[in-house]
């Protein structure tokens, strides 16, 4: 590095210095907000610590407890995985379908885009409160409408089997956010490809499978990673609506982490949980990334 530095001209060196100076806020921020917390979490996860006392080194005990004798760890992991498995594919597919509709070149589409994107910009708390009221078992809109066609609606958030699907439905309501990203991807597809395919006599379906979908895979890939990370981090809905219930049906992982850390002040154990979630999210991201060369199509 030093010899490299010496080999640079005075002008290059001045340039480099300005560059480092411009980056310095980010580099300081990286140390404080990324490097330090990750290393510290790793250290704390090997201790028993309640914030008021000094951390006591206990080695891998937290991890042993996590994997062998903590039913809440297992159930919260199960609830979270179930939520990811339920909401992620639906959101990806429905988001794409909605984007294809919104991409039709007909008058008035701007209005519909605005409407469908609204749920995606409202806060998780406001959405949760709105949906508590919307899905009220006796006087809520959904069950009222169901009763008109003679169906007895479920107890939604207040039913052990329905609570988790209800949270998933609520998250699908925000599908407009995904659709907007797809829409940007769709509009980047050059029109001449469609024209060429049409001249060759390719029908609508063929054009979708052969042009739209392959050229959209980079967007799909981006969306998959974003939504995956987001789904694992589900928290606000559990906090506001269900408090993790009924019978721990919506006791999601991050909510468990929050209760361990900031209600029970088991900071050591909570750190182990936090690190576990980080590793799960990172592994999923790396897995998606690694397999992406098989299905993501890049133009160059």
């Amino acid at each position: 590095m030093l010899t490299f530095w010496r080999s640079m001209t005075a002008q290059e060196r001045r340039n480099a210095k300005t560059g480092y100076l411009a980056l310095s806020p980010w580099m300081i921020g990286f140390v404080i907000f990324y490097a330090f917390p990750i290393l510290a979490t790793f250290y704390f996860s090997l201790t028993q610590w309640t914030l008021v006392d000094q951390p006591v080194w206990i080695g891998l005990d937290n991890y042993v407890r996590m994997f062998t004798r903590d039913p809440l760890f297992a159930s919260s992991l199960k609830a979270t995985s179930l939520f990811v498995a339920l909401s992620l594919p639906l959101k990806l597919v429905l988001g794409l379908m909605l984007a294809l509709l919104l991409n039709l070149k007909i008058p008035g589409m701007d209005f519909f885009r605005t409407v469908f994107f609204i749920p995606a910009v409202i806060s998780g708390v406001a959405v949760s409160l709105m949906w508590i009221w919307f899905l009220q078992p006796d006087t809520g809109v959904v069950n009222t409408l169901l009763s008109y066609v003679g169906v007895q609606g479920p107890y939604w958030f207040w039913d052990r089997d329905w609570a988790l699907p209800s949270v998933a439905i609520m998250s699908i309501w925000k599908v407009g956010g995904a659709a907007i990203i797809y829409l940007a991807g769709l509009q980047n597809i050059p029109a001449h490809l469609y024209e060429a395919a049409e001249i060759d006599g390719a029908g609508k379906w063929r054009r979708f499978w052969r042009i739209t979908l392959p050229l959209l895979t980079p967007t799909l890939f981006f969306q998959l990673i974003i939504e995956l990370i987001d789904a694992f981090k589900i928290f606000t809905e559990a906090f506001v609506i269900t408090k993790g219930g009924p019978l721990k049906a919506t006791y999601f992982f991050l909510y468990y982490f929050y209760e361990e850390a900031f209600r029970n002040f088991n900071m050591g154990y909570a750190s182990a949980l936090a690190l576990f979630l980080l590793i799960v999210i990172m592994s999923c991201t790396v897995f998606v990334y690694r397999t992406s060369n098989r299905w993501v199509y890049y133009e160059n």
Partner: protein
Amino acid sequence: MRTDARALDVQGQLRRSEARRRYTRWVGRALVYALMTFLALLFMLPIFWMASTSLKMPQEIFAWPPEWIPSEPQWGNYAEAFGKYPLARYMLNSAILVLANIIGGLISTPIIAYGFARFDFPGKHVLFLLMLSTMMVPGHIKLIPMFWLYQKLGLIDTYWPLILPAFFGNPFFIFLMTQFIRTIPRDLDDAARIDGAGAWGILYRIIIPLSRPALTVVVVFTFVWVWNDFLEPIIFLRDWNSYPISVGLAFFQGRYSVEWHLFMGATLVSIIPILVVYFFAQRHLIGGLASIGIKG
């Protein structure tokens, strides 16, 4: 004669097929509009129900069958909600947090992105990749160590934990802005340099004024994220007078859960600033987001 007849027939066929095509297109459009309208109504139903409830009288709330549109809208409910809950206070708190974060983002983002986009130095590529990879790090991992650190610094129950990070640059914004600056022709930098501008002069006089679309994205996204943020405020704030609106709303729910008419009014009021910002900014947003070019 025979050829003429056939020609006529061809014309007739063309006309017929043209009419048929126009007809199918018309039907197709009508179907699309019908589908879109149905979906839009479905999607707006929770919001409509919230608005409808907020204008009802207490005894109408649990009435069955429910009234879709209250016969006598109770606009006074809103005044009552503002009087009963410290809504104005919480919204002001949120506004302060939003403003401070926007200032932080507008200062830090252009400087850092300018460094990535316009200067060459050893390790730049690695640092850029590192910056991108931090986008994948979920925020929860910071909470315990930062809580410990802020406690040592006596910053728990102040706004600093919720403001400081913005001044060190958000990786998503840095990425967006770097990509944007790369599209600005370097000739403009050179011209300014000939006029005697230094590196920072170029940033201030050329880059920042030309980056308005990217900076708009920074402002709008910061607004939405900070206004909606929930997890960090509940951890770093204790005094309920300092809560932002998101935490404040969740806090009411535990206390006044029976007064749904007031409560839905409060929720509706809490999302109005977001909706206003969204309506004004949406055109810039889609353009600004497209400029990241989620391509290869």
